[in-house]
């Protein structure tokens, strides 16, 4: 069955990426440390005003996730490039979208773990009261992360062939992420401040639409960008 083979390939890549990352540890530690550092710096910059900290919490959180995420996306192809394993990976028979899907899932888990740390640190540093609508807030974090990770994984594949990939990735990625970040930040801020204007659900619907586009389009286009 073709779908069973595809699923087996996706699982194999998720397992391989997470196992190599888990054993090297350097990647996760540096990514999480960067995320926390950004939050701490924002906290210092905003000063001791509790209300100002709470107002800026959503923006600071998503910026920390964005910058730390770029490190993670670059790393996701670095393992293949360092060991010359990209060519064998491309030579396995079967649909190439499975490579993207596997890396997307692995990066989602990776960024999800980083997000847990960053959110917990953010709650403490920015004196955020956990809102009653916390399940929706988790939904926003998940939806925003999926859009960010999908585009990040896709553009990291595109930039992986370039010698200047560390520079190229943010240049390609950041403009494309503006709608996702805008929707995620706005929805997060609305939920953290009680959603008085009932705008969070509109931003969340927009996030769902962006996620569908930003997951499906890279899945379809991946074969062409990874072509040698």
């Amino acid at each position, binding site marked *: 069955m073709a779908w069973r083979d595809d699923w*087996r390939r996706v699982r194999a890549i998720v397992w391989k990426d997470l196992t190599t990352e888990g*054993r090297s540890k350097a990647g996760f530690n540096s990514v999480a440390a960067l995320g926390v550092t950004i939050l701490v710096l924002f906290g210092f910059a905003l000063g001791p005003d509790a209300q100002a900290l709470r107002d800026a919490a959503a923006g600071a959180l998503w910026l920390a996730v964005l910058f730390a995420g770029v490190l993670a996306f670059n790393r996701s192809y670095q393992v293949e490039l360092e060991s010359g394993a990209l*060519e*064998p990976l491309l*030579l*396995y028979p*079967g649909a190439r979208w499975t490579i993207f899907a596997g890396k997307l899932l692995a990066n989602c888990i990776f960024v999800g773990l980083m997000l847990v740390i960053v959110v917990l640190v953010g709650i403490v540093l920015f004196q955020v009261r956990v809102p009653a609508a916390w399940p929706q807030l988790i939904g926003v974090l998940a939806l925003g992360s999926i859009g960010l990770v999908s585009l990040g994984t896709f553009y990291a594949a595109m930039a992986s062939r370039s010698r200047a990939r560390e520079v190229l990735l943010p240049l390609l990625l950041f403009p494309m992420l503006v709608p996702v970040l805008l929707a995620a930040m706005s929805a997060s801020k609305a939920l953290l401040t009680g959603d008085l204007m009932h705008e969070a659900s509109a931003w969340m619907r927009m996030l769902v639409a962006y996620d569908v586009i930003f997951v499906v389009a890279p899945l379809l286009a991946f074969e062409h960008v990874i072509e040698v």
Partner: protein
Amino acid sequence: MSSAARVDIAIDAQGVARRFGARWVLRGVNLQVRPGEMVGLLGANGSGKSTLLRILATLLKPSAGGALVYGHDVVKRPDDVRRHIGFLAHSPGLYDDLTARENLQFAASMLGLERPDLDAALDRVGLSHVRDERVRGFSAGMQRRLSLARLVLANARVLLLDEPYSNLDVAGIALMNELIGESVAGGGAALVVLHELAPAAGLLDRTITIREGRIADDDDDAFLEPEALAAAGER
């Protein structure tokens, strides 16, 4: 190229050309390899040997011309081609933080093998004693052997080998020859990029020399005596 044509020929390249920027690395290579044949590909550095191999392996697209592997076009039907080929590149292409067995497990999953005998493959290449050790600590020769175990798992009909003897000791060379010999004897085909003919001397059916992107010499049907092999190596 028609994908229905010449399935009796393992590799059929017609007018394959490839350029990188303004520089033509291959300038119209015609080449046929039949099942049961092992062909050595010779030539100086930069003559286009590895580029030709990478085009046949579907890693590069030709700028002109085309090639079939068991009747499958490398440009139009690359996935069908990939099901037939086993490619050994310069770099081992292994994951340093996975063990030898885990590297093979990953390869088996990607190849869609239901019940791969990983231990047998490791045993075959003499790495069963380090199967649970991470590849990071392996020597270059051991990594080469593990790449070879991946080829054993793939059980490909066409072997495309780029300098397969590099980093191998005498026992490794013998192992490589044994595996190529078995594949060819079983109706497979092998196209092997070589810098030295000596390691493959007893196996080669013929040699092809590439010079400046063109076939300079194809000694088809020549019986390769040691003197002839030495002469081919000097060309």
